[in-house]
């Protein structure tokens, strides 16, 4: 079956010649009209639209956005904060970068609608430190929007007002974890908080009720307010509504960003047709479907079971190529849609070395708060580095697995799972490579095969 056409909702203008990131261009394309109408409605109605839309968070966990909003403690009498997670740092993910750099007003409009719907009066955009120009672009866009009455006091002539401030991070991956992000925003080390009791919806920023939403998620809110939750929920597939930006990187002909209705494109269509297939003379070996924490998929493996289609349970028997790119299907086959970062590896890549690269990342980024994660990520890195640069032993795969198995489920935040899943899945699916990996079998590195560790 040929791949469906892209459905560009968020990235509609991203590659349009002449489309610029200033207010005038945004308004020429209908910008801020949705906000203008939204503030004439009741805030509760907007929350209902988002609930009806079925929108799931695009940052990684896929948590339903409307449910997140409805968990807010609205009776505490404390101010409610929105914190925009623009810390895009899951390896393989690069969608928010393009929203921020090329269409910042779309994000600001989504933020303002979200703030109005949830009675938020102060918002922080937490943008990763490595986007210095992105922070400047956002600040300029906010200033333009403020001058035009879309941000600040008395939005489009109403009594409602809300400020947006840009806050720059400083290179720490853990700040993408929502409670770590909140700690960082409070001026501390970004040690994630334990839940319960620190659910952001109740005890978030400054111990006030707080919503933390991803950049792409907030852009979807604008489109939901525009077309209505009902209409939005018809895009995509049941329980996996709307569109989703898939970021493809690694060894394919055409890496890049592609926006599809969720679940309407399969991994095979995405990689073979949309991205043009493997590099010349190569075949696909493995793919990580949702950012580097997601469990790896091996080409050639089969996924079998029963799944719900409509009201019925039907059997499925899929190869990697058959998997629909939605939250539920990827979870069902044992991985996750995560942040939408698809990392492709072909037969030139050693899985031991790829895991060594990933382990070095997690070891560097563990915040160090929980012992299993701090020590475990370090040892997983040391073992894979030794395998590559020193002596690999046949038992190393089992050793790696034993370390990983003692991290997941024993930490305050999901980083524990995030650093254990790559090791667990690589060893489970490519165990023979870990057993046979040694300097002797490896030989001299052939031309064009990159170093990874």
């Amino acid at each position: 079956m040929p791949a469906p056409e892209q459905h560009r909702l968020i990235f509609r203008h991203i590659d349009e010649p002449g489309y610029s990131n200033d207010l005038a261009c945004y308004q020429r394309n209908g910008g801020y009209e949705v906000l203008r109408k939204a503030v004439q409605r009741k805030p509760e109605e907007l929350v209902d639209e988002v609930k009806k839309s079925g929108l799931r968070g695009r940052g990684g966990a896929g948590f339903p956005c409307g449910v997140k909003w409805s968990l807010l403690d609205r009776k505490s009498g404390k101010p409610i904060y929105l914190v925009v997670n623009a810390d895009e740092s899951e390896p393989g993910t690069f969608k928010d970068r393009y929203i921020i750099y090329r269409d910042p007003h779309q994000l600001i409009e989504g933020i303002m609608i979200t703030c109005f719907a949830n009675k938020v009066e102060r918002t922080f955009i937490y943008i990763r430190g490595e986007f210095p120009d992105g922070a400047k672009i956002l600040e300029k866009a906010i200033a333009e929007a403020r001058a035009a009455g879309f941000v600040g006091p008395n939005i489009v002539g109403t009594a409602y007002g809300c400020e947006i401030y840009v806050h720059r991070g400083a290179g720490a991956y853990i700040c993408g974890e929502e409670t770590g992000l909140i700690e960082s925003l409070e001026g501390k080390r970004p040690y994630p908080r334990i839940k319960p009791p620190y659910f952001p919806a109740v005890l978030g920023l400054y111990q006030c009720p707080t919503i933390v939403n991803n950049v792409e998620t907030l852009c979807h809110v604008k489109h939901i307010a525009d077309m209505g939750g009902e209409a939005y929920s018809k895009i995509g597939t049941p329980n996996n509504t709307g569109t989703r930006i898939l970021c493809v990187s690694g060894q394919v002909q055409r890496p890049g960003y592609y926006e599809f209705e969720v679940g309407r494109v399969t991994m095979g269509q995405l990689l073979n047709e949309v991205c043009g297939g493997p590099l010349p003379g190569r075949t696909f070996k493995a793919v990580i479907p949702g950012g580097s924490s997601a469990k790896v998929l091996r080409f050639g493996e089969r996924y079998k079971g029963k799944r719900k289609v409509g009201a019925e349970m039907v059997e499925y028997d899929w190869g990697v190529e058959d998997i629909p790119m939605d939250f539920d299907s990827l979870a069902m086959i044992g991985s996750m849609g995560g942040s939408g970062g698809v990392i492709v590896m072909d037969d030139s890549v050693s899985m031991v070395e790829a895991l060594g690269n990933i382990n070095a990342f997690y070891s560097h980024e563990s915040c160090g708060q929980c012992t299993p994660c701090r020590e475990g990520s370090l040892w997983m890195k040391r073992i894979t580095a030794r395998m590559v640069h020193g002596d690999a032993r046949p038992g190393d795969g089992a050793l790696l697995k034993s370390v990983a198995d003692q991290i997941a489920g024993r930490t305050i935040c999901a980083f524990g799972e995030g650093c254990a899943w790559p090791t667990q899945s690589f060893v489970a699916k490519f165990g023979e490579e870990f057993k046979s990996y040694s300097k002797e079998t490896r030989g001299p590195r052939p031309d064009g095969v990159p170093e990874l560790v």
Partner: protein
Amino acid sequence: MINLSAETMRRIDDVIPHYPMKRSAALPLLHFVQEDQGYISSEAIEWIAAKLEIQPINVYELVTFYPMFRQKPIGRRHIRVCRTLSCAIMGGYRTCAEFQRQFNTGLGEVSPDGEVTVEFVECLASCGTAPVVMIDDELHERVDASKARELSEKIKAAPAAGAR
């Protein structure tokens, strides 16, 4: 006492009221001071702590945690090569080695001519155009070894431009 430019002082005084609690301004202040002075000195830590009415340890622990803050000066230009998986698969290690060769320098050091500091950093969120490199605040995409040579030549040829 540290000498900050009038512009830096203005930015500092502008940003503090964005937050209901002063301590929240610690990261912005560290960025501003580092942009002004090139690094975070122990005097700067004391100064920021006093400005925000917190203890110096509360600032120091940020400087040691967040990878972007440094306690020593770096070269005139800062070359940050992405090390993470998508970039590495596409040749990031070769790119990094080429920059090191061009400036005869090790990772994280100031090159002997004082021109650059080459660093390996984790994912820069531009995986679709791998391998990527940040030179100061600017992102460069698809930087293979030959493009790394070109960029190095430009840095060597323009010692005054983009001075920090």
